[in-house]
C-alpha cells in the first residue's frame, strides 16, 4: 500500500480494490449499535483545510473518529502569501504536534504534493481536494457507490466494462480528474461530456473518450455523473448563459428517461439544482447522491486505516 494518497493515479488496481473491499468491511459498522473501532486509538489525524468544505471535513472527521483516532481540525483560510502563516509553517506546527496523518484541502493544485515531498512533515498526507487537480477519496467513494449499485457481489469486483459518463465543468474539476484515473484503473469506460470550453487542453491524451453532446451518450451509460457548474463561469465566457448550459448539458427528467433501466445518477455535491441537475432527477430513485455521502465515510475510514495501521485487517487490533 502507498504511503500518501495524493492522486488517484497512485493506486494500482490491487490498491484500489483493497481500499474498496476494506471500506465494504468497515461499512458493516454502520449497522452496529456502537459504530466505533479502536484501531487508530492514540493516533492523531489533522484535518488541514485551507479552503472551506464542511462536507468533506466532517466526512473525514467522522471516519477518523469511528476508528478512534484523535482528530484536530485546523482551518487556515487564505493563501500563504495573502494572509498569515505559510503552508510550510503550518506544516511544521503540525509536525511538532505529532500528526500521524494530515488530510489537506487547498485551493492550490499540488499543495498536498508539496506537503508530502518537501520534508516538512513525516506523517501520511491525504489529498482532500487540491485546486483543480485531484480529489482521490471522492473518486474512491464514487467507485464504491457504483460497485454497490451495479454488481451483485461488490467485494472483490472491479468495474470492467461499465460505462460512466461524466458531465460538466471538467476543466476546473478535481473530481473529474480523479475519477477518470481511478475508473480507468478499475476497467470502466469513461466518457467526458462538456462544451469544448470546459474541456482541458490535452484531454485527448487522457484514458477516456470525450463528447460535446450529452444526448447521444445517455442510452449507453450505466452511470451519469453530473459535475457542479458554477454560474460565474459564464462571466468568463465559458458558456453564454446558465439557461443555455442547462438546456444543452443539464440532466432533466426527459434526458433521464433516455438512460437504461439500471443506470444511476451521481453528483459529488454541492448541487446547483436547476442548473446541471433538475430537482426531480436529484430526488429520483436513480440518484445516489445521499448514498455517496454515507459511502464517503466508509471509504475515508478505509484510506486512513490502510495508511496508518500498516495492517489489512481492520478488526485485528480489537
Amino acid at each position: 500500500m502507498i504511503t500518501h494518497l495524493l492522486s488517484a493515479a497512485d493506486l494500482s488496481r490491487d490498491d484500489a480494490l483493497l481500499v474498496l473491499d476494506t471500506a465494504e468491511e468497515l461499512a458493516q459498522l454502520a449497522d452496529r449499535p456502537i459504530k466505533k473501532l479502536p484501531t487508530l486509538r492514540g493516533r492523531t489525524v489533522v484535518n488541514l483545510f485551507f479552503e472551506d468544505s464542511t462536507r468533506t471535513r466532517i466526512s473525514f472527521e467522522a471516519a477518523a473518529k469511528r476508528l478512534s483516532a484523535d482528530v484536530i481540525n485546523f482551518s487556515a483560510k487564505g493563501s500563504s502569501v495573502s494572509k498569515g502563516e505559510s503552508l510550510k509553517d503550518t506544516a511544521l506546527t503540525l509536525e511538532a504536534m505529532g500528526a500521524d496523518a494530515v488530510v489537506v484541502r487547498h485551493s492550490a493544485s499540488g499543495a498536498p504534493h508539496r506537503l508530502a515531498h518537501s520534508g516538512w512533515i513525516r506523517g501520511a498526507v491525504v489529498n482532500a481536494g487540491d485546486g483543480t487537480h485531484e480529489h482521490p477519496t471522492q473518486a474512491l467513494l464514487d467507485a464504491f457507490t457504483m460497485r454497490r449499485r451495479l454488481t451483485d457481489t461488490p467485494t472483490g469486483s472491479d468495474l470492467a466494462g461499465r460505462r460512466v459518463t461524466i458531465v460538466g465543468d471538467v476543466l476546473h474539476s478535481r473530481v473529474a480528474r480523479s475519477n477518470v484515473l481511478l475508473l480507468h484503473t478499475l476497467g470502466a469506460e469513461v466518457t467526458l461530456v462538456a462544451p469544448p470550453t470546459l474541456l482541458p487542453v490535452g484531454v485527448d491524451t487522457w484514458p477516456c473518450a470525450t463528447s460535446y453532446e450529452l444526448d447521444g451518450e445517455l442510452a449507453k451509460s450505466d452511470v451519469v455523473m453530473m459535475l457542479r457548474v458554477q454560474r460565474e463561469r459564464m462571466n468568463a465566457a465559458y458558456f453564454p448563459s446558465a439557461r443555455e448550459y442547462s438546456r444543452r448539458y443539464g440532466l432533466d427528467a426527459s434526458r433521464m428517461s433516455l438512460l437504461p433501466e439500471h443506470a444511476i445518477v451521481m453528483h459529488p455535491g454541492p448541487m446547483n439544482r436547476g442548473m446541471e441537475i433538475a430537482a426531480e432527477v436529484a430526488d429520483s430513485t436513480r440518484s445516489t447522491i445521499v448514498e455517496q455521502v454515507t459511502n464517503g465515510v466508509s471509504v475515508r475510514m478505509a484510506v486512513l486505516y490502510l495508511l496508518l495501521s500498516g495492517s489489512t485487517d481492520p478488526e485485528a487490533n480489537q
Partner: protein
Amino acid sequence: MIAYVLKGARLLGGEATDLVLEDGRIAELGTGLSRSGVEVVDADGLVALPGLVDLHTHLREPGREDAETVETGTAAAALGGFTAVHAMANTDPVADTAGVVEQVWRLGREAGHCDVRPVGAVTVGLAGERLAELGAMADSAARVRVFSDDGKCVSDAVLMRRALEYVKAFGGVVAQHAQEPRLTEDAQMNEGELSGVLGLAGWPAVAEEAIIARDVLLTAHVGSRLHVCHVSTAGSVEILRWAKSKGWNVTAEVTPHHLLLTDELAATYDPIYKVNPPLRTADDVTALREALADGTIDAVATDHAPHSHEDKDCEWAAAAMGMLGLETALSVVQEAMVETGLLDWAGVADRMSTRPARIGRLDGHGTPLAVGAPANLVLVDPSARREIDPFALASRSRNTPYAGRTLPGAVVATFLRGKPTVLDGKLQ
C-alpha cells in the same frame, strides 16, 4: 597599471595564442609573448571569448535588496563571465525616470564587477498606460538605449506603436515581454497535456506568439527596432524567421533555461521550476536551439531573476516566477549548444557577446579579440565539470533550477578593461 599576459588561450576555441592586456586594451596577440613585470596567467586549454553581455538581468535594487543587490548581482555576473549586464526596470521604484536609472548605473560603477546598463521602463510604473520619459533616460548619464516593461507586456497596441516610433529619435529599442495578458490570467505553466493533468492553469503558446506577430508588423509599419525578450515557443521562432526574411529590424533572445529544461519539471510542483515565460515542451526546446544556431534568435539572455527563499518555499500557485541564471548561463549554453554540435565557440561569442552588445548599442563590449580592442574577455575551461551548489553562488538568492546537477565548463577568469574581476574562478 598592471599588465597581464594570458598564455596559450584558444581564441574563440581556435589556436593557442598569447594575449597581452595593457592599459585596458588588448596590446598584443601572438605566440611566445612575454614581458617583464607583468602578471602571467596560464591559459593553457582555456577558451578565450569576448566578455559576455547580458541583455536581461534583474538586479532587484532598488526595492528588493533581500533578493539581490547591484553588488551581489554583478558579482554573480562577473563569475559567470559577463562584463556587462542590462538591469531590468521592474524595481521598486520602477526605473522609469532618469533619477532611478542613474542610481542603478552609479551603483554598478561603484561595485565595479561589470558594466551595468540600466533598462528604462516603457510606461510609467510599468502600468501600460502612458509613456515614461524615455528621452530623459536616454540622455541621462546611464545612456539608456533598451526600454522594456519586462515582467509585463506592453499589450496596448497604440502604446506599443508609439513607443516603437519614439525610441527612433535616440537609437533605442523596445524589448517586449510578449505575453497577451487576458490569455494568461492566473496562468501557472505551459498549457498542454501536462497542465491539464496537473490542474495548473495553462499558459498557451499563442499568448506569446500573438503579441510577437503583432509587434513585428508594428515594427515594420513604423520602421523601428524591436527586440523580443525570452522567446519560448516553436511558433514564436517561426514568426521571427518570417519577420527577419522580410528584412525587418527585429531581434530576439532566448534564456539558458528554455534551451535546457522542459515543462515536465512542473510535475514536481516544486516552484523552483516556475518561471515566466513557463518552461515549454521538448519540441519547443529543439526549435529554440535550432533558431539560436541559425541566428533567427540573436542572443542568449539570462533573465536572471533572484527571489527570496520565502517566495519559492511554498505552494506552486503562491510562488514567484523566475530563476537565477548569471552563474550558470555559459555552462548551460555549452551543454545545450556546444556539446550538441549546434554552435562552436565563435558562435557562442556571437550570441552571448557580439550581438547582445550590438542590440543594446553598448560601446566597448562584444568587440572582436583583436589588438587595440578593449580588454573585455573571459577565459573558460570547457573540460571542467561542476556540480551546482546553490549555497556556493555569489547571488544573494538561491533559486537555481540546477541545484545538484552537474554542468560542463567553468569560468576561470573575467577581465573588464584589462583588470581581472575574476581570477582562478574567484571574485577579485
